[in-house]
């Protein structure tokens, strides 16, 4: 199988699995208080270790890091944890931001949704103009889940700092792929998730700059997901910069070869993009058919906007980028990983071309 759906979720690395197992079958005790039996104290140790591992990647302090059950919880925690007021976000965020904002609007919050240009870049002038006295939070994703466009977070952070507004970054897709420095980028709150980096599902982290405090979303003493935390830390350690280089090369090859297929649109930014996500539209055909035909050849990927679970609706991201319904129709999203070899890319390209030809042959609309 050639798994190219890594932007939806990733396979857990074997070494991560080993780490998880240790905390499930050997060191399974969890310290509830500081006076727990020694056996249960290994849970504290691995929590500390993972906090340190993450902190080093984003240049924060380990004690500014808490664990969540994933990106969605983290994003909800941030949005619902700030005082009531004006929130600024963008039109291309994940549903965990957009749905939450919609419900906050009903509760009397005011929300501004920033536009993006056709490459998916947020308009920073609009950000400046939108900032108000009562703006409590600016929430901008680092990289987009559908088209891979990376935002100028450093610049956005500067704008927020100048205005003294809290700045949250959803870094689910950029973490480990694009450098993050909460100091240099003036980030106050940052959310990440483990299942997009070959770590386990059900675990994520939230960086909260000291001394910021959020209203709690989930109250009470929750047992920490220690195996998840251990696996998360291991997954981070295993991600190497050479993986990014390899994926970026493969992405460039894909752009070059897919670009040769007539009536094809490649979405997103030509410059600032993730190394591992590529979103493409093939005119005159439909995405689900492409995905299912490729599936029959043991190639797994999603249609353009899989992460939104959209059913038949067109992608809100492509819409915000100015594309019409027909542009998102035949789109697929290719999500690379370090497990994809160059030969896999060749096989995929061969099959993709065949499938596109076959479906275009079937289509009443011709180029």
């Amino acid at each position, binding site marked *: 199988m050639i798994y190219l759906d890594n932007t939806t979720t990733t396979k857990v690395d074997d070494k991560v699995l080993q780490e998880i197992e240790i905390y499930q079958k050997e060191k399974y005790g969890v310290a509830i208080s500081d006076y727990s039996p020694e056996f249960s104290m290994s849970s504290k140790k691995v929590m500390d270790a993972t906090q340190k591992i993450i902190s080093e990647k984003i240049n924060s302090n380990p004690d500014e890091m808490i664990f969540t059950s994933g990106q969605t919880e983290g994003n909800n925690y941030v949005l619902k944890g700030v005082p009531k007021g004006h929130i600024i976000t963008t039109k291309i965020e994940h549903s965990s931001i957009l749905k939450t904002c919609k419900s906050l609007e009903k509760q009397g919050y005011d929300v501004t949704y920033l536009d993006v240009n056709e490459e998916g870049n947020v308009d920073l002038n609009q950000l400046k103009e939108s900032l108000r006295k009562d703006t409590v939070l600016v929430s901008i994703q680092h990289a987009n889940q559908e088209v891979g466009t990376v935002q100028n977070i450093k610049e956005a952070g500067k704008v927020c700092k100048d205005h003294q507004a809290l700045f949250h970054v959803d870094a689910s897709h950029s973490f480990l792929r694009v450098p993050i420095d909460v100091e240099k980028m003036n980030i106050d709150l940052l959310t990440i998730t483990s299942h997009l980096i070959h770590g386990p599902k059900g675990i994520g982290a939230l960086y909260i700059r000291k001394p910021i405090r959020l209203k709690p979303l989930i109250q009470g003493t929750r047992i920490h997901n220690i195996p998840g935390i251990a696996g998360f830390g291991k997954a981070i350690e295993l991600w190497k910069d050479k993986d990014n280089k390899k994926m970026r090369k493969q992405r460039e090859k894909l752009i070059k070869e897919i670009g040769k297929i007539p009536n094809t649109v490649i979405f997103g930014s030509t410059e600032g993009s993730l190394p591992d996500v590529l979103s493409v539209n093939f005119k005159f*055909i*439909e995405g689900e*058919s492409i995905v299912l035909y490729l599936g029959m050849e043991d190639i797994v990927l999603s249609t353009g906007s899989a992460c939104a679970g959209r059913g038949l609706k067109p992608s809100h991201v492509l819409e915000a980028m100015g594309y019409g319904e*027909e542009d998102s129709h035949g789109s697929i999203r290719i999500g690379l990983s370090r497990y994809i070899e160059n030969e896999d890319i060749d096989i995929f390209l061969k099959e993709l071309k065949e499938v596109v030809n076959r479906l275009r042959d079937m*289509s009443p609309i011709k180029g």
Partner: protein
Amino acid sequence: MSIYTEKVLEHFKNPRNQGKIKDYDSFGEKGNPVCGDVMHIYIKVENDKIVDIGWETMGCAAAIATTSMLSELAKGKSLDEAMKLTKQDVSDELEGLPPVKMHCSNLAAEALHEAIKKYREKNKKKKTK
């Protein structure tokens, strides 16, 4: 554990009667406002019977499978019989379609009916000529 039945997937994989047929006698065309998909159906008629049928579809797996299945059902049928084919017939033959995909099977039957109507109008004119 696909949302599609085996039968749907089989037709999707090996579509019958696919393609525009040469010297067709009539054709019908339907577009779907819900999803933007488009379907063309071509028929060849002899003695009020559909002797050949072909189609082109831009759409999802359900759209492709329903057009394929419809073409099988219609082929060889008299125009009267073919006019009676409904989306339910197509869906039943495919052993069911997921609810949100029922609209796809609508397209195929409607396009066929349009092709037959057009054929009949054209023929009426010829006869009255």
